[in-house]
């Protein structure tokens, strides 16, 4: 494997010598051609991390290197203009006094006028905006402005692309479509990108790998599947979607849970909190199943699937089923785990967390 394009080691950032760190000993690496996402709630330090990589903030400690060239480190701070790093801002930051073409050509320093125009044109075609060259940014729609911003950042062909919540100013429909397009574009160009978001769905679908950040630290790094299905901490389990928490007694590879005896993803001993995604539970007929018996208390039909709320021994659990299974509230059902439960790290697990379904992740924005 080649060396990573971006390497961040023990990055710490505090605003003021006495202030507590906003980013605390964060380390991660981004491979060539990889789209890496930092996911976390607002105020977790993800944007500050990105701004340190861009060079707008001076790191308090730790190192940042792009292609083995140290950009930030003890006694080193390469200014933003000397870094081969492009950034797309949340609000796009298009220059209102320049036309679309002038915006895109802005970063093409040291080239002849003709070459700048040609390369700007090329970048605009790449994002499908030919015909808008002479407009002012404020006369474009949100999605078009977004693409101008992307073209402007890509035109100088940076080593690394940084994206700060680039889709959050688009409406829901446009957001999904744009996300898809941008991902395909970056992949076709083989661009490496770091992408910051608070939207778990966005991070899961856009990134090759992602890091979940909380309180200035990274809780977990992995592929979307790993992070979703094998959350290391309670926070990660909850932040990436709803899940069922089970306070269990572990003995080696198995644990006694409120939903019966279940295999574990890793061996553990004693009292542990385990997570079980709703799609990893099944509903069966109580007469034939060996699962735990409970009562259906709620049903949410979502078209492609159904989410049941089932009450077992005083706790409520969520179960996703396909839309062919049909139960009414009040029906008696058996809940059976399909997959091993995931042991959550005890360090970040409050012992008093009750068993049952987690609440909806906090809506943001």
């Amino acid at each position, binding site marked *: 494997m080649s060396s990573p394009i971006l390497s961040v080691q023990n990055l710490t950032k505090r605003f003021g010598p006495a202030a507590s760190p906003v980013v605390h000993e964060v380390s991660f690496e981004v491979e060539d051609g990889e789209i890496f996402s930092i996911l976390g709630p607002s105020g977790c330090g993800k944007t500050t991390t990105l701004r340190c990589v861009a060079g707008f903030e001076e790191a308090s400690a730790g190192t940042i290197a792009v292609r083995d060239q140290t950009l930030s480190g003890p006694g080193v701070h390469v200014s933003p203009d000397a870094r081969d790093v492009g950034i797309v801002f949340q609000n796009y930051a298009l*220059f*209102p006094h320049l036309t679309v073409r002038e915006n895109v050509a802005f970063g093409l320093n040291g080239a002849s006028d003709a070459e700048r125009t040609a390369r700007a044109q090329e970048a605009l075609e790449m994002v499908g905006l030919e015909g808008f060259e002479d407009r002012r940014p404020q006369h474009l729609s949100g999605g078009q402005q977004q693409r101008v911003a992307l073209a402007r*950042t890509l035109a100088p062909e940076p080593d690394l692309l940084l994206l700060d919540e680039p889709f959050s100013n688009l409406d829901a429909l446009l957001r999904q479509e744009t996300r898809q397009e941008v991902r395909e574009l970056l992949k076709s160009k083989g661009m490496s990108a770091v992408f910051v978001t608070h939207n778990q769905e966005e991070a899961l679908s856009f990134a090759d790998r992602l890091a979940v950040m909380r309180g200035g630290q990274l809780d977990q790094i992995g592929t979307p599947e790993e992070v979703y299905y094998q959350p290391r901490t309670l926070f990660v389990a909850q932040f990436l979607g709803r899940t069922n928490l089970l306070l269990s007694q572990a003995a080696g590879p198995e644990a006694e849970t409120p939903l019966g005896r279940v295999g574990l993803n890793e061996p553990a001993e004693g009292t542990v909190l385990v997570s079980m995604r709703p799609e990893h539970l099944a509903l069966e007929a109580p007469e034939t199943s060996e699962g735990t018996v409970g009562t259906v208390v709620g049903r949410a039909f979502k078209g492609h699937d159904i989410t049941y709320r089932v009450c077992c021994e005083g706790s409520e659990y969520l179960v996703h089923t396909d839309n062919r299974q049909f139960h009414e509230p009040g029906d008696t059902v058996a809940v059976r785990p399909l997959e091993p439960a995931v042991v959550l790290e005890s360090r970040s697990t409050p012992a008093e967390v009750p068993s049952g379904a987690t609440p909806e992740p906090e809506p943001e924005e």
Partner: protein
Amino acid sequence: MTGARVLDTIRDRWYVVIPVAVVVGGVLIPLVYLLLRAFQADPATLWDLVVRGRTLRLLGNTVGLTVGVLVGTSVLALPLAWLTTRTALLGRRLLTLLGVLPLAVPGYVMAYALMATTGEYGTLAQTLGLVVPRLSGYVGAWIALSLSTFPYLFLNLRTAFLGLDPSLEESAQALGRGRWRVFVQVVLPQLRPAFLSGGLLVALHVLGDFGVVSLMRYDTFSYALYIQYAASYDRIYAACLALMLLVLTGAILLLEARLLKGLLFHRTESGAGRTAAQYRLGPWRWAGYAFAAGVAGLSVLLPAGTVGYWMADSTASGLPWASLGAALWDSVSASAPAAVLAALLALPVAYLGVRHPSNWTRVVERVAYLGYATPPLAFALALIVFSLGAVPFAYQTLGLLVMAYALHFMAEAVGPVRSALYQAPPHLEEAARSLGRSPLGAFVSVTFPLVRRGLLVSMAFVFLSAMKELPLTFLLAPIGFETLALNTWSYAEEAMFGQAAPYALTIMFVSALFVGVLLLRERATEHPASAERA
């Protein structure tokens, strides 16, 4: 902060060091010099100069005039602000214009108009045969200053009325309070910050005024200073008077800060989405119109009519085109460089305040108001004493006058640049930086083009203000330098109303342009450029 930290901060914010040094140095050094010179006198003499009946009378007169004008401007501004914001009166835009237009009539022009209207040879006597005693003294100064400064209070109150959260009034009504009690118990208290900031502007104008009190011959600190300077130039006594005026100004600034403390933080989420209900006045609307007409008649029509009347008189004997042209040129040659200098000083200060808001940058921003708050007569005197003593080559030069204008009016230049900077968010500069521009390059290629308009507005404000400025010009103008303002004032002072008219008319024209710029800017801030949102 430790020494190293201060050095770091200065390194990062080097661009404000120059303007701050210029302003602090330019304003404070002469004042401190003045202080030192005054204290060079024998303490006993000094004591005699300060502690005597005359000082007490001057203090009483100055404070009395300030309080009187505050009351007078409130009586004019509050009803007019209410009528233009909270009633369904037709023609509210026109009424708003009437509340601002008096800014086109500087105090000394207003005083001139009042003097030229009344008295045995006044317009009233000549046209209607109505002889009223010529206005002078307290009453004359009070009327002239109230009529010419109430727009400052009007603008503040109007903004406050528009920003009131209607739900507060509605809650009070729902709790069973009648309209009048809601106004007294809920609306008026919320207007207090606007009263304080508008009132401060009015008070500073009264304290700094020289034209009105000298024409009306009312014995205030400024008038006494002028007499000292013009007649028996007693340097020590003049310095004492200037210092006492400064102390009085400082006391008023402290009082305002004290009263304002805590008031501004009470505002909850502004009721921006909703404007308050507008009252239908019914038959009372005629009272509203009558009031507005009365205010407009006195503050705009009277001076315009008077100047027009005497203009006819002046035209009959041939207009002094040559000296009018010379005066215009003198005014422009001092005002134009002052405008550029003030805008250049304001840009870094505003930039720092917008981009790095913190307690100490707020202090730096306050520095811009230092020259504005210093009474111009005292400031000019300090500059004279300082230049004579320390930099004699600068004494009575155009450069010193330009410097004085720029320092005095810099505060007017900060506002427009500030709002322009808000249109150029820091992300734009950061985007330029990540696209390979140096800090300065990013500023020049991105931020500067976006604040250019704001800078032009700043320059327009300072230029037009300096064109009508009187006390600084009076004391600091080079010999033979006769600006429009000086001509108006000196002819009016000798009751040569006809001769004063052409200059007064030109001044009113220049001031009307000032009002025009002001209104354009008000409209721009009421409807922020769509660029920001789109």
